[in-house]
């Protein structure tokens, strides 16, 4: 089903957005993988020229923000301290083929 819908959309038979449903079935994980300590994860690191999407069969807008800084932590005992933070925040917004094989519109965050 996904192949049919995707191929048709890619061939210009109809805009994918016309077919897209407004619900959010789970998307497919990216087929790009990283193997660490013998365990394979469906994820890509970000970088220049790299598709940062964590989902596959996707057509849309993406964003990546790796931001560092400081902040105030409050511990369970009430004590406070300054901690450093580092983030890898991403978004994917557009159309995708869900696990149900249909094309959907959706917005996802990578947190």
């Amino acid at each position, binding site marked *: 089903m996904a*192949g049919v*819908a*995707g191929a048709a*959309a*890619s061939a210009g038979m109809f805009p994918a957005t016309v077919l897209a449903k407004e619900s959010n079935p789970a*998307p497919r*994980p*990216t*087929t790009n993988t990283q193997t*660490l*300590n013998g365990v*394979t*994860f*469906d*994820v890509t690191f*970000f970088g*220049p*020229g*790299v*598709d*940062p*999407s*964590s*989902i*596959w*069969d*996707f*057509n*849309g*807008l*993406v*964003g*990546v*923000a*790796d*931001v*560092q*800084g*400081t*902040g*105030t*932590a*409050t*511990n*369970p005992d009430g004590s406070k*301290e300054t*901690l*450093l*933070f*580092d*983030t890898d*925040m991403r*978004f994917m*917004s557009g159309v995708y*083929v869900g696990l149900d094989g249909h094309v959907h519109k959706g*917005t*996802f*965050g*990578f*947190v």
Partner: protein
Amino acid sequence: MDLYRGQYDFTNFTTQVHDFDPGIHPYPAGLFWTQTGIHLGGINLEEGAAHMSASHLPERDFFNLPNALFRFQTPVSIEASASFDIHWSGPVTSRGSVTTPGTSGQLVMCQANMTWSARNSLGFSFVSDRHGTTSAFAQLGRVRNGVFFDQGESDNTND
């Protein structure tokens, strides 16, 4: 969203004390740290601008990246939540094509700043400082992968 005490250790993560993410579903070969519930606005690829936010997003605290990936601590994670506000802004410093196999598209490099907060079920909480953040990497773009991959676009943009 990772927290470190004293200094960063991106090699062994010995100084990392909290790691907030939604997990991997199913583990390990499933959707990686991906969730709904975020809000987007003001996306302008020409200017390198966008806004992304979320309030009280359900997360897990895995405490450190190695445990988030390999799940060796007990408990592996605890309930948590996070809120964030991210702004991408220009100037656009470079533009280029996607080079990942099976993906076509264009990406722009820009800047980002972020404020966020989080808490876990043990009573820990964190609020980031509004000022003094560093944009280590910021990127916006449009991509087509998998069944949406456009070979023609890829060929044209890589000439």
